[in-house]
């Protein structure tokens, strides 16, 4: 393991300290909790709370600030935060209009966020609601299983719901919109190299020098297919075919295209991939109204990429995406 670190067990602590010191004009740490909250008060507005395991930087703390998240709860690397930490996050985010939780669909996140929600409701009378993002279509969902994982699309959910909250939407309005939103988006990712959890010290899986894995999760969970490394164009085509089929995207429809780097993949490659994505979508006569690129929902140093398409069912989503924010990483 080659990393710029001190003791592996201190990585999350030191990272949070570095983060809040760097962005002290935007965020602060709540006491000695694992909660990064915004300096902006937003009194009377719904508070938006997200979080999950660390290792996805700039998610989620990099999206805390005016117009986006009220607080992010940072778990250990790739491990959902604990109940009491999420509970602290909810309390920090409550400004009188209730708190909305953006949960990614993993058992751990769901249980911890749900139990924290119950605590805040029962003990503090805070109105709490939530959405469970499950944009990763690599894993087939059914009501009998865990369903699909929540991955990069979560960032778009933060941005759109964050703008709504900033514009004084109510908890119910946010809840309703969130359910529409998550049904209009789909993501697929692939990895060229694995991520190494500092405390584990070794990669969670191995890939040969010419192998890639399609459909890999943001914690290195195995995907749907191993393949030989091939051209960017072909990878973009595979993703678009699957996403278009899943969303039943039709000619003339409008989408947001979000190319997300997994942490170790340079922007050079992300732009090349985006170029292929846009060319293919153009060929399908699907209009890309907004393009978003960069390392936003990462998997530590993993080399890889994901593509999220969001059908613009509501024109206001574009305005929400465009709305000014004051966060570290949008």
């Amino acid at each position: 393991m080659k990393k710029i670190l001190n003791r592996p067990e201190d990585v999350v602590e030191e990272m949070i300290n570095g983060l809040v010191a760097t962005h002290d004009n935007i965020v602060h740490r709540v006491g000695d909790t694992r909660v990064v909250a915004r300096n902006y008060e937003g009194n009377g507005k719904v508070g938006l709370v997200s979080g999950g395991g660390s290792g996805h930087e700039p998610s989620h703390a990099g999206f805390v600030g005016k117009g986006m998240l009220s607080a992010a709860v940072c778990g250990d690397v790739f491990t959902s935060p604990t109940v009491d930490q999420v509970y602290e996050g909810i309390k920090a985010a409550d400004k009188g209009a209730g708190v909305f939780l953006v949960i990614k669909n993993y058992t751990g996140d769901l249980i911890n966020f749900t139990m924290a929600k119950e605590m805040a409701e029962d003990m503090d009378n805070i109105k709490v609601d939530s959405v469970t993002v499950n944009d990763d279509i690599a894993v087939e969902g059914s009501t009998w299983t865990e369903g699909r994982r929540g991955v990069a699309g979560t960032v778009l959910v933060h941005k759109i719901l964050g703008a709504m909250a900033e514009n004084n939407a109510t908890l119910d309005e946010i809840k309703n919109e969130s359910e529409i939103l998550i049904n209009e988006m789909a993501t697929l990712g692939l990895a060229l190299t694995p991520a190494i959890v500092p405390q584990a010290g070794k990669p969670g899986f191995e890939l040969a020098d010419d192998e890639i894995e399609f459909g890999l999760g943001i914690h290195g969970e195995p995907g749907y297919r191993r393949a030989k490394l091939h051209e960017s164009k072909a990878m973009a085509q595979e993703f678009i075919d699957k996403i278009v089929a899943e969303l039943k995207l039709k000619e003339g429809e409008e989408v947001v295209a979000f190319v997300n780097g997994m942490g170790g993949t340079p922007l050079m490659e992300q732009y090349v991939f985006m170029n292929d994505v846009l060319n293919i979508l153009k060929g399908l006569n699907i209009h890309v109204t907004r393009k978003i690129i960069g390392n936003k929902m990462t998997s530590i140093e993993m080399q890889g990429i994901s593509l999220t398409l969001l059908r613009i069912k509501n024109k206001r989503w574009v305005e929400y995406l465009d709305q000014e924010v004051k966060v570290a990483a949008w």
Partner: protein
Amino acid sequence: MNSVDFTKWFEIWTSEIQTHKIHLSDLDNAIGDGDHGFNMAKGVAAYQEAHLNKQDLSIGDECKLIGMSMLSKVGGASGPLYGSAFLAMAKSFGDTKEITHDQLVAALTAGVESIMYRGKASRYEKTMIDVWLPVIESLKQNNLTEEMIDSFVNETGPLKATKGRAAYLGDRSIGHIDPGSFSSGLLFKALLKLI
């Protein structure tokens, strides 16, 4: 079982967890995200530390102590699942220093029900439930052995996961032992030493 033995149960279990930390994470690596050993080790270490300052706890409080440790230190799926199981057991035992076999079975039943409620899972979904349920069954019939526990753990191998992180693998989860089942196996093998 009295509170001294009861405490011993957790003592043995928590040290077994430390011993098998790497193995638990390796199991999780195969079908999850490779942190189950670290997660559990962190939780039991917190319990061990918290325990240093407590003496003569009732059985209920002992359960509460370990439950709160798991809940507030572990995160992930296993933290709140074990946490809420131990808290449910604490409630079931209450403020006592001696428990009967029936009380033990009742508390474990409350524990697994809490796991099932929180995890929205039932048997044969390749989770720790696949160890808890048959163990409780055998305890009721008073015929639980170490070999049985091992076989409950191993029987999670052929199952296809439909809950937890391993579920995302679908068929590829088949053939691997569920890490949470292994850590639960350790729990019950520790118990067996004391009853």
